[in-house]
């Protein structure tokens, strides 16, 4: 009944750790396990400190940023909380109490905004078009003298749409408004250069690129006002208290080093193969997101007239792991706010399946997926009362 090897296609949620990452981390569990001390500390602590600094350099060089502009966190959820709450708190003193985000942001941004709203911050939730793109005119029109921060994701977590952050950052720069972007699903997969794009804050994470879970970071452009909200010691340039996760940081850096342009091209070709074959070989399917401006690893397709949890369960029984925007699958029992945000109805959200690729997927697996899907979709459609007339 079950295939021996799981074919894992939920790499946007978490990825398998690369052995080379583990190997890089290992000495920092068993040999150099001391706290990163000051430069006047004992030798193991100084070693730990230097290793942390090196990891920081590796990661920030991918952003073309300086190492002092980067803070390690427990993941991109913390990074985005820190960016949004930190900036809003810092600028409240100047009576800047307006935040702009898009409707389809990931939960850390969305719920940080909702939380701040309860505390009196004004929030504008920008609409997106059918592909998920933010309307730049609406963005410009929403800006007021009170606007402190604009937070628009680099790419969407569900449908992979890559925003025009170049244009958005130019608007922000011109209006002197801080700009944060959530790059959880693009860091190392797409180029991001802070010398070319005037970004002020960027959330990144290791778990999407075969690094360890529970490690992320926030790029903070020099001079960006940010209130410290994790109080305690003076770690991370006194921006974020707490014992540094040194093995995690080392693992994150190694994971960054291991992502190559060639791998990203490979993912893109697998993605295009998956999308084109499903759309051609299975009727009544809709691609969610933009056909070209999407992350190399993301495909999101609605199979009309059937429900997503039924598809994921069948796929699971055939050895595939994927996710869906269906309400039945989510902990909240709410349909995907992203599919609804791009103008889809509940039916479109319910039948949407997200396939996200990673380093360990290959063409054979994708072909097997397509064949399995054909069977499952046809079986479920036989049971469905919809779409038969």
């Amino acid at each position, binding site marked *: 009944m*079950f295939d021996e090897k799981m074919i894992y296609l939920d790499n946007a949620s978490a990825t398998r750790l690369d052995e080379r990452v583990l190997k890089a981390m290992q000495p920092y569990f068993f040999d150099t396990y001391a706290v990163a001390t000051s430069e006047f500390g004992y030798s193991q602590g100084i070693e730990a400190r230097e290793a942390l600094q090196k990891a920081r350099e590796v990661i920030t060089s991918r952003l073309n940023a300086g190492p002092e502009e980067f803070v390690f966190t427990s993941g991109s959820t913390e990074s985005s909380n820190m960016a949004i709450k930190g900036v809003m708190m810092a600028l409240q003193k100047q009576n800047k109490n307006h935040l702009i985000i898009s409707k389809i942001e990931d939960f850390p941004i969305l719920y940080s905004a909702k939380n701040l709203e309860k505390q009196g911050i004004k929030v504008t939730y920008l609409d997106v078009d059918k592909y998920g793109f933010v309307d730049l005119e609406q963005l410009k029109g929403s800006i007021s003298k009170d606007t402190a921060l604009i937070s628009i994701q680099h790419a969407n977590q569900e449908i992979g749409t890559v925003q025009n952050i170049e244009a958005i950052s130019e608007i922000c720069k011109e209006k002197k408004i801080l700009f944060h972007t959530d790059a959880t699903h693009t860091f190392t997969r797409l180029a991001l250069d802070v010398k070319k794009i005037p970004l002020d804050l960027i959330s990144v994470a290791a778990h999407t690129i075969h690094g360890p879970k529970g490690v992320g970071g926030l790029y903070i452009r020099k001079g960006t006002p940010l209130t410290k909200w994790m109080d305690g010691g003076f770690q991370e340039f006194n921006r974020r208290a707490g014992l540094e996760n040194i093995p995690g940081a080392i693992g994150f850096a190694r994971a960054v080093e291991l992502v190559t342009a060639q791998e990203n091209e490979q993912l893109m070709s697998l993605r295009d193969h998956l999308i084109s074959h499903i759309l051609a070989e299975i009727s009544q399917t809709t691609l969610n997101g933009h056909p070209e401006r999407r992350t190399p690893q993301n495909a999101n397709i609605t199979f009309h*007239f*059937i*429900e997503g*949890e*039924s598809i994921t*369960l*069948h796929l*699971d*029984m055939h050895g595939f792991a994927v996710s869906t925007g*269906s*309400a*039945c*699958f989510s902990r909240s*029992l709410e*349909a995907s706010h992203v599919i609804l945000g791009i103008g889809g*109805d*509940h*039916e479109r959200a*319910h039948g949407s399946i997200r396939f996200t690729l990673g380093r360990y997927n290959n063409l054979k697996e994708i072909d097997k997926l397509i064949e399995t899907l054909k069977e499952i979709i046809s079986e479920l459609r*036989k*049971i*469905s*009362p*919809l*779409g*038969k*007339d």
Partner: protein
Amino acid sequence: MKFPYSEKVLEHFRHPRNVGKIEDADGKAMEGSPACGDMVSVQIKVDEKTKRIQDIKFESYGCASNIATGSIITEMAKGKTLEEAKKISWKQASDELGGLPAIKAHCSVLAVEGLRSAIRNYEEKHGLVTDKTPTTIEIIEKRLRKVMNPLSGLDLVGTKLIKKIELKEGVAKIDVDLPENHQFANSIKEEIMEKIESLHDIKKVSITFNG
């Protein structure tokens, strides 16, 4: 391998019994809507003399627990009298399946409601309904909420496709805001007929399309 459902739920999910429609069904019902997440269609064939369910078929647009409940309920109802089948509860169906997650109750209860509605539909058509509450426009509207536009999967009332409902001396007039040549006009018409015609004091249903 770890799955979120019991073996029996998975079994019925993978191999649902009694799927489909009955050509000359005696009672029909459709419960739920894609907007609320799940939908179940139940159709029954009833032995006129014994009032036993001879045949029963279901269709489901829904999650695993919806499909599995639809399947088990058809097995449980087959051969039972209408009175017996009416009494089948969600709890009984769930027990029969070896238990369902509590959070999935709303998806699976639809199948039970579908069975009851199909029985009710049969009783109405055969003048077996003892409750002779006069039909009102509200009752008609409530029933039209269960008629779907198959294209959008949303109900006619919710999507404001019902322009007007008139009711006079047992004649119900319903205006649908869709063109007559709409690809689903006929199936929508049939569904409205099915739902309204069987009401005990309705003599005639006239449906006009004018979108």
